[in-house]
Structure formats: C-alpha cells, structure tokens
C-alpha cells in the first residue's frame, strides 16, 4: 500500500500523546524519543543512524525552544520533520547532464534490486523529456538479463545496445558510448550486473566501467525493503565505486522504507527517484519534504494534487480542489472524476496519497478495486440529476429503481451511498489536515 504507512501510524501515536499538553518537560521529550527509537528501528532504519538522529532531535527539542512554545507537541513534530528532511536531502536533486558531450548514467546495485526495470523506466522518462537515450546491457552474467532489457527497451521504444558475445562489461560499455556518439544519441544508460557490495572483484569491475565511461550519474538502485544492511550497501558502493545518488525501488509496497533514511545518512547522497510499480511509467521524482510529511502521517497531498492536474488539466483540478474544500462535492462530481482517476494510475496508489487514507483498516482498502468503478458508474448514471446533487433524498423506492436501472442490487446502491458519505468525511479530513500542514511550514 503506502510506503512508511506503519511508521506514520506509530509516529501518529507518539505525537498524539504529546498533543494537548500545555508544556513539554524533559521527561516528555525523553518518552517521545524512546517511542521514536522503536518506530525508527521497526522501520528498518539502521540502529546507528537512529542513535545519531535522536541525539539531534533531543538537542533541539529539550530546552528553551520547546518551553517557550505554546504548542509543544507541534514543536516536536516540526523538529522531527525538519531533521528528517535534513537527512533525506533538503531539496529535490535533478539529474546531471553533460553539456557538450554524450551523457552517461550508470546503474549499480545488489541482485534483484530492480536495475533493469529502472533502467527502462529512466530511458522512457528521458525520451519523454525529448532526449534520445540508448540502453546498454552490461549484465553478461545473469541468464536472460540481456533479453529482459531488450524486451523492456522495446516496450518503451528505446534502442538497446548489447555487445558481441564474449566481450567484457567494460568493453561493452565503452563501445556503447562510441555507438551513441556515432548515432548522435545524447544519453547512455548502463544497466550493470547485480553485485554484492563485499565482492571485491565485481566492485572493481564497476569502478573500471565508471573510469572508462565517465558517467555524470552513478545511481545506486536499492530496494525500499532493505534492512539494517542498507548502510553497508550504500557506503560500500559509495566508497568503492563512487555514487552520485540513489533510486529507491518497490516503494509501492508497504515497506516502512527506513532504508531511505539509512542510505541518505550514511552517504550524504540524494535519493533522486522512487520506483512505484512494475509498469515502465512507474518512476517518480523523490521529494524529501513530502516523504518527511508522509513519515509524520500528513499524507502526500502534494503528489495527489500534481497527479490530478496531469490527469484533469489544471483548471479542473483547481475546481475539484475548491469543491473539496467547500465540501460541495456531489455524486455528479464523483462520476465526472471517475474517468480522470482512472488516468491517474492504479486506484489504490492514488488513494494512498490522500492524507488519512492510510489510517483506514487494510481490509477496507483491499476492497477497493478497479472493476468496482464500473459498477459505481452504472449506479450513478441511473440516478436523476437531483439525486446526484442531493443523495439524501434517495429513499427506499428510489433505491429500488436505481438498482433495477443499473442492473445492480439494492445492497450495491446502499454501499455506494455509504462509501460516498465516507469519502466526503475523508475529504473533510484532508482539508483540516491541510491547515495543519500550512501551520507547520
């Protein structure tokens, strides 16, 4: 479902305890930090990183700053959020390109972290931005790795370069760069073999590929579910090969993603993208501030609004937001947005960006599925305009008529009406949370 979800829930519990108190004593802070330690450890943040992180929060939280504050709970929340952002990287870091020459991006990482899929996603993204990328299969070890990249390249209509049989990865990389130059292509993406960070021979190979091709970006592709070892993985790749950033994959899982904190803290290198699924378009920029907000249970409203804009067009999105804010959202709007929502991506993913959605029980969230949308559409289409604008007039006989008209059951109609009420309540929550977010920033 949502990355950091469980972490958010835990933190929410911690801060709920702090809220509503007049002043924060040192023991209050200590108690909160103890809880925070458990939260971060269970989220797979490396235990050493946790120690350092809590020290910094404590230094800032205990003392005048907190005691002078009118709302101590908010103050600690604010400090934790700021420190999280600081560790995750203050601002979003764009990719670095070579101004005069062909640009080389090199992807490295452990086996199974998602390099090949990420390489294709990155190529698709660059192509969309008007670049002419070349994918290069440097993994000569894993069976069918080259075939996988070829198939992925075909899917996003990007050329894939694979060297002749018997060439070393270094030779393939170098001849690929020459090939790109001769074909006037501007970005070369090297998909290297998965390697263990303790395999000296393989790490040296990666370092040699880097020395030969001089990439502007060496990106460590890492699994968001990684445990305590994340620190050693990131540090080893950084010291032995030298990385410029991290791409965090499988973020569509329910992993708490403490690895993000661990790796950023251990290397000081920015996280540049997150992988959100198996489709070639499921690559998104990493926003440290949003991620920190998500950790603190404030949801991911900014991403939601951005996606809505892309799917509906900016004006409609503003209109939608205005309606949501005034809580004038009707079944008519619900119907109109449905097609747009389909365009925004998998339903669960979209919904998970809404603050508060992660607080719903997993059983409820599991029920939401795409085919349900069709049924909902049919039900709303069987209502009169008046009913759509004002669902409260829908009595028993109207329900019977709507069910018959849409080929559904009265239970289906009842469920929709109930869900719509819940959605309205949730939207209301979004906007009270929205105020909270403004208050903090």
């Amino acid at each position: 479902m949502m990355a950091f979800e469980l972490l958010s829930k835990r933190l929410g519990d911690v801060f709920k305890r702090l809220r509503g108190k007049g002043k924060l004593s040192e023991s209050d802070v200590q108690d909160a930090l103890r809880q925070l330690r458990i939260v971060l450890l269970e989220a797979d943040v490396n235990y050493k990183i946790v120690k350092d992180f809590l020290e910094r929060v404590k230094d800032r939280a205990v003392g005048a700053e907190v005691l002078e504050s009118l709302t101590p709970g908010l103050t600690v929340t604010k400090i934790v959020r700021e420190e999280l952002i600081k560790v995750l990287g203050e601002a979003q870091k764009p990719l670095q390109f070579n101004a005069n020459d062909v640009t080389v991006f090199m992807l490295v990482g452990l086996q199974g972290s998602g390099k090949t899929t990420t390489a294709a996603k990155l190529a698709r993204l660059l192509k969309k931005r008007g670049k002419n990328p070349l994918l290069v299969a440097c993994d000569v070890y894993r069976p069918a790795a080259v075939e996988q990249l070829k198939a992925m390249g075909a899917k996003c209509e990007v050329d894939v370069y694979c060297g002749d049989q018997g060439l070393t990865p270094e030779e393939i990389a170098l001849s690929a760069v020459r090939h790109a130059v001769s074909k006037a292509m501007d970005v070369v993406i090297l998909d290297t073999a998965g390697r263990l960070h303790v395999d000296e021979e393989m790490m040296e190979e990666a370092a040699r590929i880097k020395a030969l091709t001089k990439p502007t970006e060496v990106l460590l592709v890492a699994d968001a579910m990684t445990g305590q070892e994340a620190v050693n993985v990131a540090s080893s790749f950084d010291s032995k090969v030298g990385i410029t950033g991290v791409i965090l994959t499988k973020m569509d899982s329910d992993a708490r993603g403490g690895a993000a904190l661990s790796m950023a803290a251990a290397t000081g290198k920015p996280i540049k993208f997150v992988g959100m699924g198996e489709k070639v378009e499921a690559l998104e920029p990493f926003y440290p501030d949003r991620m920190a907000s998500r950790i603190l249970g404030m949801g991911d409203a900014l991403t939601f609004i951005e996606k809505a804009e892309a799917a509906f067009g900016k004006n409609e999105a503003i209109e939608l937001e205005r309606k949501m804010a005034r809580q004038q959202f009707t079944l008519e709007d619900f119907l109109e947005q449905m097609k747009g929502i389909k365009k925004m991506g998998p339903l669960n993913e979209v919904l998970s960006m809404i603050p508060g959605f992660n607080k719903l029980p997993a059983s409820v969230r599991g029920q939401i599925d795409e085919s349900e949308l069709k049924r909902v559409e049919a039900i709303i289409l069987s209502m009169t305009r008046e009913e759509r604008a004002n669902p409260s007039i829908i009595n028993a006989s109207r329900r019977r008529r709507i069910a018959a008209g849409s080929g559904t059951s009265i239970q289906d109609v009842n469920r929709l009406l109930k869900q719509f009420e819940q959605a309205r309540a949730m939207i209301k929550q979004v906007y009270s949370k929205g105020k909270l977010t403004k208050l903090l920033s």
Partner: protein
Amino acid sequence: MSLLDAFYRGLARTRQSIARVFQSGAAMPEELYDQLFEALLAADTGLGTAEALLDGVKRELGRKTSPGIEEIRASIEKQIIMMMQGQTDLNIGRGPISVILFVGVNGTGKTTTVGKLAAKLGREGHRVMLAAADTFRAAAAEQLEIWARRARADVVTHRVGSDPAAVVFDAISAAKARAQDIVLVDTAGRVQTRFNLMEELKKIHKVISRELPGEPSESLIVLDATTGQNALEQARQFKQAVGLTGAAITKMDGTAKGGIAIAIWRELGVPVKLIGMGEHLDDLYQFDPSAFAKALLDTA
C-alpha cells in the same frame, strides 16, 4: 562446501559483531545485554525477536550473579534453536507427482532458486518439470529455460502476457504424460499489497489442487536475506493467500544477516527450509537451525 561452512562464510559479519560484544569485556551483564540487543537488531531479527531472545537468556541465567560469556553465548544459541523447531526437509513423494509452488516479491530470487532446486532434485534421482508461470516479467521464461538446461530438467513456457494458471495446468499435464514426479512452479514476483496479483496467485493454487488433489505439497515464499522487517509482512500476506509451508532465504552470501529467518519462524510459524548462498547451480542447502545458530554466534 558443507552447510556449516557456507553459513560461516555467509554470517561472517554478524558473527564478528556479536563476537566483539563478547570480547569487549563489558563487565556488567546489563551493559552486555544492551550490546547484544544491538547486535541482534543489526542482524535484522527485529525488536520483538531480539527482546524474546534476551528475555529467554535472562530467564535461564537470571539466578546467577555474573554469568560467563560462554554461558550467555550458549544460552542464546539454545534460544534460537528453540524458536526454530520443526521439519526443514521438503515434503515430497506422498503422491505420484509433488508440486512445489514458489512465491514472493520481485527480485528475491525465485527463478534462480527454482533452477538450483531442479538441479538438486535431479541429482537425487527425481524427474523434474519446471512451470514458467511468470508470464509478466520480460525474459523470465528465457531465464528459467537456461536454468532448466543447466539442471537438465524439462520446462513448460507460454508467451508473455498469457494466463499463468494455464502454464501450470499444462506443466502438470505434461508431467503426468512423461511420468515425472516433481513440478516446480516459478511465479511472477508481486508486491504483497497488490490485491489483484494476490488473487491471481490464489487461482494458480486452486488449479494445482484441482488437477492434483492434496498438492501443492509445498508453497514456499522466497525471501531476500537483506530484507528488513517487511519480510514479516510479506510472509503474512502470502501465507494468507496460499498457505505457506515454508520459506527459502536467498542471497545469504556476502553480509546478509538473515535475522528475519528467526522472526518469521517464531512469529508466523513459517519454517525456513532452503538457503541460497550464491549464483552457482549447487549453492542451495536444506536449512539447519543448529548450524545457523552456531554460525551466528560462534566467537572462536
């Protein structure tokens, strides 16, 4: 290389960090316990399991005023073994055909594990059929075909995008026709929160038990040893979908911690049955809790 040797190599760093605790000469038991707690956390056992382990040690040694380092070490080893009680050999050979279903999230090493197990079972005299039921990932079938050649096993593949349950159906039919006794089913990686993909897995499971009542004999989740606490959630969700009978932990080479092995066994009752150590055909072992505990803790 024996399993114990393999563990010793794989768990080198974890063992060293625990050994450092024992060698640090922390005088007070409390201080020693704190450091041990951190060493266990660093091995990805998770808070609950680390606490349970040390509680068990304290219960056992609590009466003593200053237990020796060797006593504490032996006690933890005992606690770990106690948390990992159960059969670790594969439950095959009950019927004419035994099916082993492999499930897990993306990139944990399902295809590689299927390939290695096919070779292992082949060496033991079984006639093995592989079902390439990962019809989603590009070139997954080609990858399995290469492993099948290496392992000298048969393989059934369909085109990309086809119904994985149909692949399984065909593989079982072919195994019946060719008098093979093992069918290994390689499924597509799926993140456990993807509702529809988990439903697809249930369908595959249903087809197997319809074609061969009582099968699959084993439904194994393949877990990456570098995974943190999310491994528990993975095991929980896949268990709910297909009723896991065990786990295969992969990539135990390098510095992988594998503490999750203890956690999923203790908290979910999912026994670890297989351990993958590297990229070679014969780098797959039956799991042995006492070898694991010994390798994790041996300070010599």
